[in-house]
Every structure is written in C-alpha cells, then in structure tokens.
C-alpha cells in the first residue's frame, strides 16, 4: 500500500483520474464480500447456507458503521507510538470532508477504499467456524476484533508511522494485514469453538459448487480493485499490479489442479475455485514487487502449497471448516515470504530479493512482519474468543447444529424440502 500522501508517477496535483479509479476500486472491493458469501455459502451444507452468507453480509453492516465512527482514525489517524491511530482524533470522519488541492486523491476516496478492506478481513474469518456459531456472538466478535486487532495491524503495516512500515516490510495490498491476520484468527476461533458434531465422520461436502465458482469469479473481479487500487493512483504501478494479479492467479489455479490430478486422480471445480483464491491471496502482498514471470512462479507455488495445506486440518484435528488456514494463512505467508526471494528492483516497489542479488535482508524483514502480525492476531483472537465463549457462549446448542442453524437462528431455510412449490400455507399477509 502506498501512502495517501505519496506522489504518484503521473499526477502531482489532486487528480480526477486517481480519484475516479479509487472510488471504482472501492466498489470492486466491496463486492468481494458478497462474493465471499457465495464462495463460502456454496461450500457448506444446504441447511446452513444462509447463516454462512449472513456472516459475511453482517460484516458490511457492523464494520462499515464502526469504520466511519472510530475505525478510520484508529487505523490511519494521528499516530500513537507507532501502534495505532487515535480513535478520538477524527472520530466520525468530520475532518475528512475536504481535501487539499495538492493531494493525489481525495481524502474520502482513501477512507472509502480502506473501509472495504476492513470489512472483508473480518468476513474471511467466518469460514473457519461454519455451521455451529451463534450469530449474536459472531456480531459481537466482528466489532471487537476489528477494533482490537485489525485497526492496530493496519496501522503498523500501512500508516507512515507504523512500526512494520518503517521496518521496510513490503505488504502492498494486505498479505499480512488481511490474509495472515484473518487466517490465524480463523484457526484461533476454530480452536475456541471446537469441531462440528460428526466432523471427520459425517459427510460435509459442499452443497452447491456453482455458488463456489460464482463466488470465486466475483472475488477475482473485485481483487483487481483490491490490488491495483492499492496503488492509490491510476498509474503505472496500478497497471503492473493488475497484470501480476492476473498472472499469479491463473498460475495458482493450474498449480492447485495439477496437485489434485496427481494426488486424487481428478481436477475438480472446487480445486479450480480454491486455486484462484489461493493465487489472489499470495500475490496480494507481492503484486508491486515482482515481475510478471515472478508472479507466475509465485502463483504456481501458492497453488501447490495451499492444495497440500488444506489437508493439514485432518492430520492435526482442528475443524477449520472452509480452509481459512490452508488458503489465507498459508497463502498469505507464502506470498509475503516469497517477496524476499522473488522481488526485483525492476518492479515498482524497487527492491531486490535473494534471487535478484538482494541477499537475505528483505526475506528477514518479511518474516518479521509476517510473524509479528501472526503472533499478535493469534493471542488477541484467542483472548476475544474465550471471553465471548465464557460470557455469552459462542456455540449453538447441539440440537440446533443438527437441524441446521438457518432455521433456528434466522427463521429461514434456503431451499424447500420438496421442489414442488409451497411447503406451507401463507398464514400472515
């Protein structure tokens, strides 16, 4: 992520082009959250699809409101010791409604863009705790986690005064802030809440793979806003990032499918959709610092590594239902660390990694950034998770889990039991 006040390689004064692109990119990134709802919703069983989709949707509700109240200033406002912004200085965004004529884009465009990152990061976590989570507990979690974990971490990595930013770590669009952060939080919550009833015994196969592919398509589309928008300008960097984002994602799909073909004998649609997301995750931190060929290599590695990593939960025995760990944590780590090897100074970020004669320095910085975020998020999420579990309970009763959380929690079912029209009379107009 480039700072809002950084000079772009095209525009020096307030640019209509930059502002138009970032407002558009913000809308693209916001669409990723409904896209994620489909991606996740298709992977659960038919009796919990609405709840799964709602866990993403409610993130827009809760985080969107918090963002305009204290979220933005806490992430990007007046620095407090390199750790976070001051949530009271700029509370409610009153100070952001005008823009200096020399800024590269409007203040509110930056506020809008960053809001959508906060929203999807929380939503990503929900895939780890499918089918068994109290909705109210999840709503509470989103508000607490975004405040105590996401805003500080975003400040560390992306604010000019943040301590990881000053370390020289490269995380262009959120490998640490979004994916490692959400991935390890997913693991923590899966451990706090526990396995689903019948996990490893009862079939829990995806109920609607076309939904999953639709979701993957929407995520990929939106991700061009996520990555290329992170240039915060309509410029050369954004264009390089766009191509790298495409290249890595294509390669990761191939990597995942080849792994499946060799291991399981068949290339699956779920594998293609998962490979796409794994590639998008891995290129996110690296998209400004590698060449297009480097992006292909990075994507291939991420596709293979994540396809293997999703098997870990069966061996280690944690029910990360939709592989938030295998895809987002492992993919995020892969991309963040590979910058240390594959970065080339010919790319916009201008840093050489090990393979380009830059030595091990950048790899060390990348590892420090990755594991600092991982450790902080793990500890804080465990504390928040156990606090919710001990006070109001995080998990639905067993009988609700058996019949399906959609009906018990939301009073709705996604599908009629019989495909023949009404299953009941209308009782109230």
């Amino acid at each position, binding site marked *: 992520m480039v700072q809002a006040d950084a000079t772009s390689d095209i525009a020096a004064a307030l640019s209509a082009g930059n502002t138009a692109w970032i407002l558009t990119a913000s809308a693209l990134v916001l669409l990723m959250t409904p896209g994620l709802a489909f991606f996740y919703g298709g992977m659960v069983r038919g009796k919990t699809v609405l709840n799964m989709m709602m866990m993403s949707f409610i993130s827009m509700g809760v985080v969107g409101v918090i963002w305009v109240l204290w979220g933005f200033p806490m992430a990007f406002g007046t620095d407090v010791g390199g750790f976070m912004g001051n949530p009271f200085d700029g509370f409610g965004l009153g100070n952001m409604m005008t823009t200096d004529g020399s800024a590269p884009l409007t203040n509110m465009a930056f506020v809008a863009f960053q809001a959508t990152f906060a929203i999807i990061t929380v939503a990503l976590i929900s895939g780890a705790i499918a089918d068994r989570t109290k909705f109210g507990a999840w709503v509470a979690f989103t508000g607490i986690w975004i405040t105590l974990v996401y805003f500080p971490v975003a400040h560390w990595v992306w604010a000019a005064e943040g301590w990881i930013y000053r370390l020289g770590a490269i995380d262009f669009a959120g490998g640490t802030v979004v994916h490692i952060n959400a991935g390890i939080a997913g693991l923590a919550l899966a451990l706090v809440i526990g396995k689903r009833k019948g996990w490893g015994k009862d*079939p829990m196969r995806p109920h609607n793979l076309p939904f999953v592919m639709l979701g993957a398509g929407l995520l990929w589309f939106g991700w061009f806003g996520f990555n290329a928008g992170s240039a915060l300008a309509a410029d050369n960097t954004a264009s390089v990032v766009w191509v790298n984002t495409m290249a890595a994602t294509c390669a990761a799909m191939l990597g995942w499918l080849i792994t499946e073909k060799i291991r399981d004998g068949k290339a699956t649609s*779920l594998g293609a959709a*998962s490979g796409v997301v794994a590639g998008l995750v891995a290129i996110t931190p690296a998209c400004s610092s590698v060449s297009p060929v480097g992006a292909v290599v990075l994507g291939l590695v991420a596709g293979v590594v994540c*396809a293997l990593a999703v*098997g870990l939960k069966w061996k280690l025995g944690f029910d990360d239902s939709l592989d938030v760990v295998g895809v987002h944590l492992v993919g995020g780590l892969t991309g963040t660390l590979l910058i240390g090897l594959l970065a080339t100074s010919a790319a916009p970020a201008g840093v050489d990694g090990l393979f380009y004669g830059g030595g091990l320095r950048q790899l060390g910085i990348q590892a420090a950034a990755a594991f600092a975020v991982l450790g902080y998020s793990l500890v804080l999420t465990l504390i928040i998770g156990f606090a919710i579990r001990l006070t109001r309970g995080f998990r639905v009763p067993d009988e609700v889990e058996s019949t399906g959380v959609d009906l018990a929690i939301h009073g709705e079912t996604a599908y009629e039991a019989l495909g023949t029209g009404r299953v009941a009379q209308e009782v109230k107009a």
Partner: protein
Amino acid sequence: MKLVTAVIQPHRLEDVKNALQGAGIRGLTVSEASGYGRQKGHTEVYRGAEYVVDLVPKLRLEVLVADEDAETVTDVIVRTASTGSIGDGKVWTVPVEDVVRVRTGEHGTDAV
C-alpha cells in the same frame, strides 16, 4: 390393473419414455430418487477429502396399466433402460385394487 414401478439410470429416461409411447402406453409418472443396490456408491473428493456417496441419483418410473399390458411395459423398460453395467436398476409389478380418474370419476380400467 397393475402398477409397474421401475428404478432406472437418469440418463435412460428419454429412450424409455419414447419406447413406452411407441408401445401405446399413455401415462407415466417420473420422480427423482436416490438409493443403492449392488452398485453401492461412488467416491467424491473435495479439497483432498474423500467422501463415499452411497446414495446414487436415480429416477423412479410408475406406470398404471391394464393387466394385459403389464408385461409389455416391463419388457420395454428392461430393454430400453439397460446399459449392461451395474446400477441399471430394477422393475417390479404389483396388483392395483382400484384407480379413479380425478376429472371424471371413472373407475377401474377406464381410468387407466
């Protein structure tokens, strides 16, 4: 009267239906079913996790006919639904006490 019920492979429906129409059989009810016989199930793999799917999708055909047509129906279904592989299904016949056509109130063979 007889009720001929058949469980067949879904992809054989068109051929069976056309052959029954060709044999002059005027009514047919089709419903989606799932089950297993000697075929057992098959294996599906999702993100490396294997699932044995033991209930396989099938179609259930029901044909109400006069006694003398039951054998024709059975023969036609057996001939056209067969692919020679395991899982092709079964056909069975049971006697029917009465049939009523809802629109007219006709009973028995007239209602078939």
